Protein backbone atom coordinates (compact mmCIF):
# COMPACT_ATOMS: atom_id res chain seq x y z
CA UNK A 1 0.00 0.00 0.00
CA UNK A 2 1.67 3.22 -1.13
CA UNK A 3 -0.62 5.93 0.20
CA UNK A 4 -0.71 6.34 4.00
CA UNK A 5 -3.99 5.27 5.58
CA UNK A 6 -4.54 8.76 7.03
CA UNK A 7 -4.33 10.26 3.54
CA UNK A 8 -6.66 7.62 2.10
CA UNK A 9 -9.12 8.35 4.88
CA UNK A 10 -8.89 12.12 4.36
CA UNK A 11 -9.60 11.76 0.64
CA UNK A 12 -12.32 9.13 1.13
CA UNK A 13 -14.19 11.13 3.77
CA UNK A 14 -13.90 14.27 1.62
CA UNK A 15 -15.35 12.51 -1.43
CA UNK A 16 -18.17 10.98 0.62
CA UNK A 17 -19.00 14.43 2.06
CA UNK A 18 -19.20 15.85 -1.45
CA UNK A 19 -21.49 13.04 -2.55
CA UNK A 20 -23.73 13.41 0.51
CA UNK A 21 -23.94 17.13 -0.23
CA UNK A 22 -25.04 16.27 -3.77
CA UNK A 23 -22.09 18.07 -5.41
CA UNK A 24 -21.52 16.87 -8.96
CA UNK A 25 -18.40 18.96 -9.53
CA UNK A 26 -15.82 18.96 -6.79
CA UNK A 27 -12.03 19.31 -6.85
CA UNK A 28 -9.76 16.56 -5.59
CA UNK A 29 -6.28 17.97 -6.10
CA UNK A 30 -5.42 21.64 -6.48
CA UNK A 31 -2.60 22.13 -8.97
CA UNK A 32 -0.92 25.19 -7.50
CA UNK A 33 1.69 26.72 -9.81
CA UNK A 34 3.40 29.50 -7.87
CA UNK A 35 5.73 30.26 -10.80
CA UNK A 36 6.53 29.19 -14.36
CA UNK A 37 10.29 29.61 -14.06
CA UNK A 38 12.28 26.39 -14.36
CA UNK A 39 15.92 25.32 -14.39
CA UNK A 40 15.20 22.77 -17.14
CA UNK A 41 13.63 22.98 -20.58
CA UNK A 42 12.21 19.50 -21.14
CA UNK A 43 11.28 18.35 -24.61
CA UNK A 44 7.70 17.41 -23.73
CA UNK A 45 6.89 20.39 -21.52
CA UNK A 46 4.59 23.16 -22.71
CA UNK A 47 4.44 24.98 -19.39
CA UNK A 48 7.38 27.31 -19.36
CA UNK A 49 7.47 29.08 -22.72
CA UNK A 50 6.79 32.67 -21.69
CA UNK A 51 8.43 36.08 -22.03
CA UNK A 52 10.93 37.05 -19.31
CA UNK A 53 8.58 39.29 -17.33
CA UNK A 54 6.12 36.40 -16.92
CA UNK A 55 8.85 33.96 -15.90
CA UNK A 56 9.97 36.47 -13.25
CA UNK A 57 6.49 36.62 -11.74
CA UNK A 58 5.33 34.44 -8.90
CA UNK A 59 2.36 34.18 -6.58
CA UNK A 60 2.62 35.40 -3.01
CA UNK A 61 2.09 32.91 -0.19
CA UNK A 62 -1.12 34.79 0.65
CA UNK A 63 -2.41 34.33 -2.91
CA UNK A 64 -1.56 30.63 -2.75
CA UNK A 65 -3.33 30.14 0.57
CA UNK A 66 -6.39 32.08 -0.59
CA UNK A 67 -6.61 29.78 -3.63
CA UNK A 68 -6.25 26.70 -1.41
CA UNK A 69 -9.05 27.90 0.89
CA UNK A 70 -11.28 28.86 -2.00
CA UNK A 71 -10.82 25.54 -3.75
CA UNK A 72 -11.14 23.31 -0.69
CA UNK A 73 -9.43 20.25 -2.21
CA UNK A 74 -7.83 17.92 0.37
CA UNK A 75 -4.65 17.51 -1.71
CA UNK A 76 -2.41 20.28 -3.04
CA UNK A 77 0.10 19.51 -5.75
CA UNK A 78 2.78 22.15 -6.35
CA UNK A 79 4.18 21.87 -9.85
CA UNK A 80 5.41 24.76 -11.95
CA UNK A 81 7.96 25.68 -13.22
CA UNK A 82 10.33 24.36 -10.61
CA UNK A 83 8.82 24.97 -7.17
CA UNK A 84 12.19 24.79 -5.41
CA UNK A 85 13.03 28.04 -7.27
CA UNK A 86 10.04 29.73 -5.63
CA UNK A 87 11.53 31.98 -2.95
CA UNK A 88 8.77 31.27 -0.40
CA UNK A 89 8.45 27.54 -0.92
CA UNK A 90 9.41 26.74 2.71
CA UNK A 91 6.78 29.02 4.31
CA UNK A 92 4.19 27.93 1.73
CA UNK A 93 4.63 24.22 2.49
CA UNK A 94 4.64 24.92 6.23
CA UNK A 95 1.37 26.86 5.97
CA UNK A 96 -0.28 24.13 3.89
CA UNK A 97 0.80 21.41 6.30
CA UNK A 98 -0.57 23.50 9.19
CA UNK A 99 -3.91 23.42 7.34
CA UNK A 100 -3.65 19.63 7.11
CA UNK A 101 -3.53 19.62 3.36
CA UNK A 102 -1.68 16.72 1.78
CA UNK A 103 1.06 18.40 -0.21
CA UNK A 104 2.98 16.98 -3.17
CA UNK A 105 5.91 19.17 -4.16
CA UNK A 106 6.67 18.20 -7.76
CA UNK A 107 10.34 18.83 -8.39
CA UNK A 108 13.09 17.90 -10.80
CA UNK A 109 15.21 17.62 -7.61
CA UNK A 110 18.20 19.50 -9.02
CA UNK A 111 18.03 21.81 -6.01
CA UNK A 112 16.62 19.30 -3.56
CA UNK A 113 19.77 18.39 -1.69
CA UNK A 114 20.74 22.04 -1.34
CA UNK A 115 17.31 23.04 -0.01
CA UNK A 116 17.22 20.13 2.44
CA UNK A 117 20.64 21.04 3.76
CA UNK A 118 19.41 24.60 4.20
CA UNK A 119 16.67 23.26 6.48
CA UNK A 120 13.85 24.62 4.36
CA UNK A 121 11.43 21.78 5.11
CA UNK A 122 10.40 19.53 7.98
CA UNK A 123 9.19 15.95 7.52
CA UNK A 124 5.45 15.46 7.91
CA UNK A 125 2.88 12.86 7.00
CA UNK A 126 1.16 15.67 5.08
CA UNK A 127 4.16 16.46 2.92
CA UNK A 128 5.80 14.50 0.11
CA UNK A 129 8.37 15.32 -2.51
CA UNK A 130 7.22 14.07 -5.89
CA UNK A 131 10.39 13.78 -7.92
CA UNK A 132 10.16 13.95 -11.69
CA UNK A 133 11.91 10.95 -13.23
CA UNK A 134 10.90 9.78 -16.69
CA UNK A 135 12.91 6.58 -16.51
CA UNK A 136 16.44 5.37 -15.84
CA UNK A 137 19.45 7.58 -16.42
CA UNK A 138 19.64 7.61 -20.22
CA UNK A 139 15.90 7.97 -20.73
CA UNK A 140 15.45 10.62 -18.08
CA UNK A 141 18.40 12.77 -19.13
CA UNK A 142 17.13 12.67 -22.69
CA UNK A 143 13.59 13.61 -21.59
CA UNK A 144 14.88 16.64 -19.68
CA UNK A 145 17.44 17.52 -22.35
CA UNK A 146 20.38 17.61 -19.96
CA UNK A 147 22.96 15.03 -18.93
CA UNK A 148 23.48 14.35 -15.23
CA UNK A 149 20.00 15.25 -13.98
CA UNK A 150 19.04 11.66 -13.14
CA UNK A 151 22.08 11.30 -10.89
CA UNK A 152 21.27 14.61 -9.18
CA UNK A 153 17.66 13.57 -8.65
CA UNK A 154 18.65 10.23 -7.16
CA UNK A 155 21.06 11.99 -4.79
CA UNK A 156 18.23 14.30 -3.75
CA UNK A 157 15.88 11.38 -3.19
CA UNK A 158 18.43 9.59 -1.02
CA UNK A 159 19.01 12.70 1.06
CA UNK A 160 15.28 13.31 1.52
CA UNK A 161 14.69 9.71 2.56
CA UNK A 162 17.65 9.83 4.93
CA UNK A 163 16.08 12.86 6.61
CA UNK A 164 12.73 11.12 7.03
CA UNK A 165 10.72 12.75 4.26
CA UNK A 166 8.04 11.07 2.21
CA UNK A 167 9.28 10.73 -1.37
CA UNK A 168 7.34 9.65 -4.44
CA UNK A 169 8.22 9.84 -8.12
CA UNK A 170 6.24 11.05 -11.10
CA UNK A 171 6.98 9.78 -14.60
CA UNK A 172 5.62 11.00 -17.90
CA UNK A 173 5.81 8.52 -20.74
CA UNK A 174 6.08 9.24 -24.43
CA UNK A 175 6.00 7.23 -27.62
CA UNK A 176 9.09 5.06 -27.82
CA UNK A 177 9.26 4.33 -24.11
CA UNK A 178 10.46 0.78 -23.44
CA UNK A 179 8.19 -1.29 -21.16
CA UNK A 180 11.15 -3.41 -20.13
CA UNK A 181 13.27 -0.41 -19.17
CA UNK A 182 10.34 1.07 -17.27
CA UNK A 183 9.98 -2.16 -15.31
CA UNK A 184 13.68 -1.87 -14.46
CA UNK A 185 13.00 1.72 -13.44
CA UNK A 186 10.20 0.60 -11.09
CA UNK A 187 12.62 -1.88 -9.51
CA UNK A 188 15.25 0.83 -9.15
CA UNK A 189 12.82 3.19 -7.42
CA UNK A 190 11.71 0.49 -5.02
CA UNK A 191 15.36 -0.27 -4.29
CA UNK A 192 15.86 3.40 -3.50
CA UNK A 193 13.00 3.21 -1.02
CA UNK A 194 10.50 5.67 -2.48
CA UNK A 195 7.01 5.47 -1.05
CA UNK A 196 5.24 5.14 -4.37
CA UNK A 197 5.38 5.99 -8.06
CA UNK A 198 3.04 7.94 -10.30
CA UNK A 199 2.96 7.31 -14.03
CA UNK A 200 1.06 8.99 -16.81
CA UNK A 201 1.24 9.42 -20.57
CA UNK A 202 2.36 12.88 -21.64
CA UNK A 203 -0.09 15.41 -22.98
CA UNK A 204 0.51 16.78 -26.46
CA UNK A 205 1.04 20.39 -25.48
CA UNK A 206 0.89 22.52 -28.61
CA UNK A 207 3.75 24.59 -27.17
CA UNK A 208 6.04 21.69 -26.31
CA UNK A 209 9.29 21.67 -28.28
CA UNK A 210 9.00 17.99 -29.24
CA UNK A 211 5.73 17.35 -31.10
CA UNK A 212 6.61 13.92 -32.48
CA UNK A 213 6.58 11.63 -29.47
CA UNK A 214 3.23 12.09 -27.76
CA UNK A 215 1.33 8.86 -27.23
CA UNK A 216 -1.92 8.22 -29.05
CA UNK A 217 -4.60 6.21 -27.27
CA UNK A 218 -3.97 2.71 -28.59
CA UNK A 219 -0.20 3.07 -28.31
CA UNK A 220 -0.67 4.19 -24.73
CA UNK A 221 -2.85 1.17 -23.94
CA UNK A 222 -0.26 -1.14 -25.50
CA UNK A 223 2.61 0.44 -23.58
CA UNK A 224 0.91 0.45 -20.17
CA UNK A 225 -0.51 -3.07 -20.66
CA UNK A 226 2.91 -4.49 -21.39
CA UNK A 227 4.55 -2.49 -18.63
CA UNK A 228 2.04 -3.30 -15.89
CA UNK A 229 1.15 -6.89 -16.76
CA UNK A 230 2.39 -9.29 -14.08
CA UNK A 231 3.55 -6.45 -11.85
CA UNK A 232 6.16 -7.19 -9.25
CA UNK A 233 4.60 -7.46 -5.80
CA UNK A 234 6.93 -4.82 -4.41
CA UNK A 235 6.00 -2.11 -6.90
CA UNK A 236 3.96 0.58 -5.22
CA UNK A 237 2.00 3.16 -7.16
CA UNK A 238 0.85 6.36 -5.53
CA UNK A 239 -2.32 6.57 -7.58
CA UNK A 240 -5.67 4.90 -8.07
CA UNK A 241 -5.39 1.31 -9.39
CA UNK A 242 -8.49 1.99 -11.47
CA UNK A 243 -6.61 4.77 -13.25
CA UNK A 244 -3.82 2.30 -14.04
CA UNK A 245 -6.42 -0.10 -15.43
CA UNK A 246 -7.74 2.76 -17.56
CA UNK A 247 -4.24 3.35 -18.93
CA UNK A 248 -4.04 -0.35 -19.77
CA UNK A 249 -7.29 -0.14 -21.73
CA UNK A 250 -9.23 -2.25 -19.24
CA UNK A 251 -11.65 0.54 -18.31
CA UNK A 252 -13.48 3.28 -20.14
CA UNK A 253 -13.47 6.58 -18.27
CA UNK A 254 -14.48 10.10 -19.22
CA UNK A 255 -12.38 13.09 -18.22
CA UNK A 256 -13.17 15.07 -15.07
CA UNK A 257 -11.54 18.38 -16.05
CA UNK A 258 -12.56 20.18 -12.84
CA UNK A 259 -11.07 17.40 -10.67
CA UNK A 260 -7.55 18.88 -10.60
CA UNK A 261 -8.10 22.63 -11.04
CA UNK A 262 -5.08 24.82 -11.71
CA UNK A 263 -4.24 28.16 -10.14
CA UNK A 264 -1.26 30.23 -11.26
CA UNK A 265 -0.11 33.82 -11.84
CA UNK A 266 -2.84 34.24 -14.47
CA UNK A 267 -5.70 33.03 -12.24
CA UNK A 268 -7.86 29.87 -12.43
CA UNK A 269 -7.00 28.12 -15.67
CA UNK A 270 -9.78 26.96 -18.02
CA UNK A 271 -10.61 24.17 -18.40
CA UNK A 272 -7.83 22.07 -16.84
CA UNK A 273 -4.17 21.71 -16.01
CA UNK A 274 -3.25 20.93 -19.62
CA UNK A 275 -5.39 23.16 -21.80
CA UNK A 276 -5.19 26.93 -21.57
CA UNK A 277 -8.36 28.40 -22.99
CA UNK A 278 -8.62 31.35 -20.63
CA UNK A 279 -8.66 32.29 -16.98
CA UNK A 280 -11.29 32.93 -14.33
CA UNK A 281 -10.82 35.33 -11.44
CA UNK A 282 -12.33 32.95 -8.87
CA UNK A 283 -12.78 29.21 -8.48
CA UNK A 284 -16.55 29.73 -8.39
CA UNK A 285 -16.39 31.58 -11.68
CA UNK A 286 -14.28 28.77 -13.15
CA UNK A 287 -16.85 26.15 -12.17
CA UNK A 288 -19.89 28.16 -13.20
CA UNK A 289 -18.77 29.74 -16.46
CA UNK A 290 -16.55 27.12 -18.10
CA UNK A 291 -18.35 25.25 -20.88
CA UNK A 292 -17.46 21.82 -19.53
CA UNK A 293 -19.50 20.09 -22.24
CA UNK A 294 -16.79 21.17 -24.73
CA UNK A 295 -14.14 18.99 -23.05
CA UNK A 296 -13.46 15.30 -22.60
CA UNK A 297 -13.48 12.50 -25.14
CA UNK A 298 -17.23 12.47 -25.67
CA UNK A 299 -17.20 16.17 -26.55
CA UNK A 300 -15.37 15.43 -29.78
CA UNK A 301 -12.81 18.11 -28.92
CA UNK A 302 -9.69 16.98 -30.76
CA UNK A 303 -7.46 18.43 -28.03
CA UNK A 304 -9.03 15.89 -25.66
CA UNK A 305 -9.17 12.95 -28.05
CA UNK A 306 -5.91 11.22 -27.08
CA UNK A 307 -5.53 12.68 -23.62
CA UNK A 308 -5.23 10.08 -20.86
CA UNK A 309 -3.38 12.23 -18.37
CA UNK A 310 -3.77 11.67 -14.64
CA UNK A 311 -5.10 15.16 -13.91
CA UNK A 312 -8.26 14.45 -15.89
CA UNK A 313 -8.76 10.75 -15.33
CA UNK A 314 -7.49 10.07 -11.83
CA UNK A 315 -10.36 12.14 -10.35
CA UNK A 316 -12.72 10.04 -12.46
CA UNK A 317 -11.16 6.88 -11.07
CA UNK A 318 -11.47 8.12 -7.49
CA UNK A 319 -15.05 9.19 -8.07
CA UNK A 320 -15.76 5.76 -9.56
CA UNK A 321 -14.42 4.12 -6.42
CA UNK A 322 -17.05 5.84 -4.32
CA UNK A 323 -19.86 5.81 -6.87
CA UNK A 324 -20.82 2.15 -6.32
CA UNK A 325 -20.01 -0.90 -4.24
CA UNK A 326 -18.52 -2.46 -7.36
CA UNK A 327 -16.14 0.45 -7.85
CA UNK A 328 -15.14 0.27 -4.20
CA UNK A 329 -14.67 -3.51 -4.37
CA UNK A 330 -12.54 -3.26 -7.52
CA UNK A 331 -10.32 -0.61 -5.96
CA UNK A 332 -9.84 -2.57 -2.75
CA UNK A 333 -9.13 -5.76 -4.69
CA UNK A 334 -6.50 -4.12 -6.90
CA UNK A 335 -4.94 -2.32 -3.94
CA UNK A 336 -4.68 -5.43 -1.80
CA UNK A 337 -3.55 -7.84 -4.52
CA UNK A 338 -1.34 -5.41 -6.43
CA UNK A 339 -2.84 -6.75 -9.69
CA UNK A 340 -4.25 -4.41 -12.28
Amino acid at each position, binding site marked *: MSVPVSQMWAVASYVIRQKLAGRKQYPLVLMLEPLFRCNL*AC*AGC*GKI*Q*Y*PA*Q*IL*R*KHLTVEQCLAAVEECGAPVVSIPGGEPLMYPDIGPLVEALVARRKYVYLCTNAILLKEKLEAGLFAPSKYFSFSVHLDGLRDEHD*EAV*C*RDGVYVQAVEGIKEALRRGFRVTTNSTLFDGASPLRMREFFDAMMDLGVEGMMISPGYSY*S*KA*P*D*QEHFLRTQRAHDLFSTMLSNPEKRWRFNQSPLFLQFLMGKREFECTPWGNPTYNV*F*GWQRPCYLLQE*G*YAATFKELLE*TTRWENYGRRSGNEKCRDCMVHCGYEPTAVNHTFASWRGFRDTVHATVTGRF
Partner: protein
Amino acid sequence: MTDGATLEGWAPEIGPATPLEEIVDKAFDYRGNITVVKTDGSETVGYLFNRNRDVPVPFVQMFDLTGAGPYTIPYGEIRAIRFTGRDTAAGNSYAAWLRAKEAAKAATHSEKDSGGAPSRGA
Protein backbone atom coordinates in the same frame (compact mmCIF):
# COMPACT_ATOMS: atom_id res chain seq x y z
CA MET B 1 5.73 24.23 -32.39
CA THR B 2 8.12 24.52 -35.25
CA ASP B 3 10.01 27.62 -36.20
CA GLY B 4 7.98 27.86 -39.39
CA ALA B 5 4.68 28.11 -37.53
CA THR B 6 5.52 31.21 -35.55
CA LEU B 7 3.53 34.43 -35.85
CA GLU B 8 6.51 36.49 -34.73
CA GLY B 9 6.52 39.80 -36.59
CA TRP B 10 2.95 39.49 -37.84
CA ALA B 11 1.09 42.81 -38.06
CA PRO B 12 -2.36 41.98 -39.41
CA GLU B 13 -4.91 44.48 -40.65
CA ILE B 14 -8.22 44.04 -38.87
CA GLY B 15 -10.91 43.52 -41.50
CA PRO B 16 -13.25 40.97 -43.07
CA ALA B 17 -10.36 38.63 -43.92
CA THR B 18 -8.89 38.76 -40.41
CA PRO B 19 -11.51 39.89 -37.91
CA LEU B 20 -10.45 41.21 -34.52
CA GLU B 21 -11.77 38.10 -32.71
CA GLU B 22 -9.51 35.87 -34.78
CA ILE B 23 -6.45 38.05 -34.19
CA VAL B 24 -7.17 38.16 -30.46
CA ASP B 25 -7.39 34.36 -30.37
CA LYS B 26 -4.01 34.12 -32.10
CA ALA B 27 -2.52 36.69 -29.72
CA PHE B 28 -3.89 34.71 -26.77
CA ASP B 29 -2.24 31.58 -28.14
CA TYR B 30 1.04 33.37 -28.85
CA ARG B 31 3.84 32.83 -26.30
CA GLY B 32 5.55 36.14 -26.84
CA ASN B 33 4.89 39.79 -26.14
CA ILE B 34 2.54 41.71 -28.39
CA THR B 35 1.64 45.34 -28.93
CA VAL B 36 -1.97 46.42 -28.62
CA VAL B 37 -2.75 49.72 -30.34
CA LYS B 38 -5.83 51.29 -28.85
CA THR B 39 -8.41 53.47 -30.56
CA ASP B 40 -7.08 56.54 -28.71
CA GLY B 41 -3.66 55.94 -30.27
CA SER B 42 -1.94 54.71 -27.11
CA GLU B 43 -0.06 51.40 -27.09
CA THR B 44 0.25 48.64 -24.50
CA VAL B 45 3.15 46.24 -24.92
CA GLY B 46 3.23 42.98 -22.99
CA TYR B 47 1.91 39.46 -22.68
CA LEU B 48 -1.76 38.80 -23.47
CA PHE B 49 -2.75 35.97 -21.13
CA ASN B 50 -6.52 36.05 -21.18
CA ARG B 51 -9.46 36.91 -23.37
CA ASN B 52 -13.17 36.50 -22.89
CA ARG B 53 -15.83 36.93 -25.54
CA ASP B 54 -18.60 35.31 -23.53
CA VAL B 55 -19.38 38.41 -21.51
CA PRO B 56 -21.41 41.55 -22.33
CA VAL B 57 -18.19 43.56 -22.86
CA PRO B 58 -15.55 41.24 -24.37
CA PHE B 59 -12.04 41.96 -23.12
CA VAL B 60 -8.40 40.94 -23.17
CA GLN B 61 -6.02 40.99 -20.20
CA MET B 62 -2.28 41.70 -20.29
CA PHE B 63 0.79 42.03 -18.13
CA ASP B 64 3.12 44.74 -19.41
CA LEU B 65 6.86 44.41 -19.99
CA THR B 66 7.63 45.03 -16.31
CA GLY B 67 5.15 42.33 -15.28
CA ALA B 68 2.70 44.90 -13.93
CA GLY B 69 -0.99 44.30 -14.41
CA PRO B 70 -3.27 42.74 -15.24
CA TYR B 71 -4.55 45.45 -17.54
CA THR B 72 -7.99 44.85 -18.98
CA ILE B 73 -8.74 46.21 -22.45
CA PRO B 74 -12.21 45.90 -24.02
CA TYR B 75 -12.29 44.58 -27.58
CA GLY B 76 -14.00 47.81 -28.58
CA GLU B 77 -10.90 49.83 -27.67
CA ILE B 78 -8.50 47.78 -29.82
CA ARG B 79 -7.46 49.25 -33.17
CA ALA B 80 -4.62 46.82 -33.97
CA ILE B 81 -2.50 44.01 -32.56
CA ARG B 82 1.09 43.42 -33.62
CA PHE B 83 3.12 40.32 -32.73
CA THR B 84 6.23 42.25 -31.77
CA GLY B 85 7.94 40.01 -29.20
CA ARG B 86 10.02 36.87 -29.66
CA ASP B 87 8.02 33.64 -29.86
CA THR B 88 9.28 31.71 -26.83
CA ALA B 89 7.60 28.50 -28.02
CA ALA B 90 9.50 28.31 -31.29
CA GLY B 91 11.20 25.07 -30.25
CA ASN B 92 14.80 26.26 -30.27
CA SER B 93 15.87 24.63 -27.00
CA TYR B 94 14.83 21.14 -28.08
CA ALA B 95 16.36 21.56 -31.52
CA ALA B 96 19.61 22.65 -29.88
CA TRP B 97 19.53 19.63 -27.56
CA LEU B 98 19.01 17.25 -30.48
CA ARG B 99 21.87 18.86 -32.40
CA ALA B 100 24.16 18.55 -29.38
CA LYS B 101 23.23 14.89 -28.85
CA GLU B 102 23.81 14.07 -32.50
CA ALA B 103 27.18 15.83 -32.39
CA ALA B 104 28.16 13.91 -29.24
CA LYS B 105 27.13 10.59 -30.81
CA ALA B 106 29.09 11.39 -33.98
CA ALA B 107 32.15 12.30 -31.91
CA THR B 108 31.92 9.04 -29.95
CA HIS B 109 31.66 6.98 -33.14
CA SER B 110 34.54 8.88 -34.66
CA GLU B 111 36.73 8.18 -31.59
CA LYS B 112 35.83 4.48 -31.70
CA ASP B 113 36.57 4.30 -35.41
CA SER B 114 39.97 5.95 -34.97
CA GLY B 115 40.76 3.98 -31.81
CA GLY B 116 41.99 7.13 -30.10
CA ALA B 117 41.51 8.19 -26.49
CA PRO B 118 38.42 10.26 -25.69
CA SER B 119 39.07 13.95 -26.06
CA ARG B 120 38.46 16.36 -23.17
CA GLY B 121 37.09 19.84 -23.05
CA ALA B 122 35.38 19.63 -26.41
